[in-house]
């Protein structure tokens, strides 16, 4: 004779029923592609030649000697470091000014500085490629005003400068976003804390370094990590502004993966690059988790 289900069994069935839709979606769109990426990274899988053979860790060995991969990785690192300095640094300065410096029209300034994030990255890329274009852009004239001249092929046409141009455009778009997050953190610092600091002889810049910065430490860490992760997965801005050029000067990991998969048809190698990419993201995630828990 069948036993009536116990409360515990009924609870388990209810929980599984409720979790099932999310689990199915997670499995189908995240877990399976992830496993497939790991699996295909072990194959020489070329779409155009119809080749698909198991090669073990050969793709990873090839990756170690790939000069363009090195350029892309260094560009991503430059992107990460300079973006933290520009986006989080400038964001901090602007947030501090709006939080305690500026007294009037705060909302107007905040809206103007935040606005670039509302524009799609493709549009931002097109806009700045026109601005930085040596033939039709105004940058030459602007630089002329302060006695400087732009590189002959424009900022984005010079291999030595192009990546910095892309980083600058990225900072232009995202600094306002960082400022809003940091400003929200600063506005959570109670006014009484600043008043107590004033009583203790700490105000202005001293209060910024002794009170504001340490109090919003976790917000700053989160902003840094968001910026670093954003810098490692940057693709659209590079694609629209330089398409990785001139040469491979502005190649980044995401654009190199894209190029290998969809232009060169080397699916196996692109997957191996993706695995390395994932490992880097995982390390940064771990760092963030550790730092915030401290």
């Amino acid at each position, binding site marked *: 004779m069948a036993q009536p289900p116990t409360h515990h069994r009924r609870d388990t069935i209810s929980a599984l029923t409720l979790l099932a839709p999310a689990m199915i979606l997670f499995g189908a769109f995240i877990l399976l592609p992830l496993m497939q990426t790991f699996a295909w990274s072990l194959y020489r899988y070329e779409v155009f030649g119809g080749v698909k053979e198991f090669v073990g860790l050969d793709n990873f060995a090839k990756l170690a000697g790939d000069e363009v991969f090195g350029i892309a990785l260094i560009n991503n690192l430059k992107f990460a470091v300079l973006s933290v300095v520009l986006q989080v640094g400038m964001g901090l300065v602007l947030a501090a000014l709006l939080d305690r410096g500026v007294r009037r029209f705060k909302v107007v300034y905040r809206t103007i500085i935040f606005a670039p994030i509302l524009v799609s990255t493709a549009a931002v890329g097109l806009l700045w490629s026109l601005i930085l274009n040596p033939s039709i852009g105004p940058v030459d004239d602007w630089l002329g005003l302060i006695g400087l001249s732009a590189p002959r092929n424009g900022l984005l046409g010079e291999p030595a400068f192009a990546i910095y141009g892309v980083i600058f455009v990225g900072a232009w778009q995202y600094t306002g976003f960082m400022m809003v997050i940091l400003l929200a953190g600063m506005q959570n610092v109670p006014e009484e*804390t600043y008043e107590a600091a*004033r*009583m203790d002889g700490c105000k202005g810049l001293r209060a910024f370094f002794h009170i504001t910065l*340490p109090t919003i*430490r976790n917000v700053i860490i989160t902003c840094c990590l968001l910026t670093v992760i954003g810098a490692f997965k940057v693709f659209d801005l590079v694609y629209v502004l330089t398409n990785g050029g001139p040469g491979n000067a502005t190649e980044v990991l995401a654009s190199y993966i894209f190029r290998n998969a969809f232009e060169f048809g080397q699916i196996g190698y692109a997957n191996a690059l993706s695995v390395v990419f994932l490992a880097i993201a995982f390390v940064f995630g771990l760092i963030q988790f550790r730092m915030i828990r401290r």
Partner: protein
Amino acid sequence: MSELSINGLRKSYGATEVLHGLDLEVSGNEFVVFVGPSGCGKSTFLRSIAGLETISGGSMTIDGADISGLEPDRRGVAMVFQNYALYPHMTVAQNMGFALRMAHVPKAEIARKVREVAEILQLEPYLDRRPMDLSGGQRQRVAIGRAIVREPKVFLFDEPLSNLDADLRAHMRLEIIKLHRHQKGISIYVTHDQVEAMTMADKIVVMRDGNIEQVGSPLDLYNEPVNRFVAGFLGTPRMNFLDATSTGVANWRLGLKVGGMTLSPPIRPDADALPEAGAPLSLGVRPDGWRIVAEGDGLAGRVVHAEQLGRETVVFIELEHGPQVAMIQPGQYRLHSDDAIWLAPAPDELHLFDASDAALPVARIPRTNSHN
């Protein structure tokens, strides 16, 4: 011995003046409590002394030196805030020593002073903890410790106990008083809780609408309030007020008609302007100033509710020809809702206020008992 002198202090926000020329003298080791309803300006007054508000007029001196234009840290004052205002990223020791660090005091000296104060406040076991790891009472002690470390001439407390539960509040009241006696300086304490004011103060400053209504010792204010506001503000339950009419002065006694009852309280010999016959007055009777009398001898009423507190009974009575009043009777009175009751004010417990709410000089027997 410090001395704080405030003369004609004014504070305005735009065109709105919130403090209207306040004068106050505090000397020696007085514990002064600013008390008043929300929005009366007591916190603004305190913050003006602290230097956290820029004053619009008047002057303040500590030991003769003008502090009106000085930065808060240069005034010789320290403040304990309502929400503690501890620095969340610093340890207890760092919080307590922060002002000294800002003043570039050598590290060893900071450590010595912090240890000394931590010992007084029994905070030694918590010196390496962060504020988030402490209870409310411990945080409050750290906030007090942070103030003491600076060795100020004037301690300012802005409703420091309002976030604590009733038991801890009573305990901390005593702790603060003991500390005040130990530290020897002026303490100024802001509260809206008149029990705190009565139990802690050497001197109470009652404020209303940006003005000081009365300054004096707790018992002076309780026994001789200068107006109806002060009389109603101090005491729990608050003083009862009944409409009365003067029937004129005869033989140094003021004739009064209250409901169906007549009274003739004695007038103080120093009384100058006295109400004429027919003048409307307000009779004030504290809850413990009522006596239960025989039927027909006083004011008739019905019991609304009796709170049996064991040591005393608080009875709320709806008067037949008047408002609801509160009466406190010592001991345990078995009264029930709707019981008929007759009551009259004890002759030496009357307070009288004229039409402008100013107290009239009624003679009363002092309540104070002295020991020995």
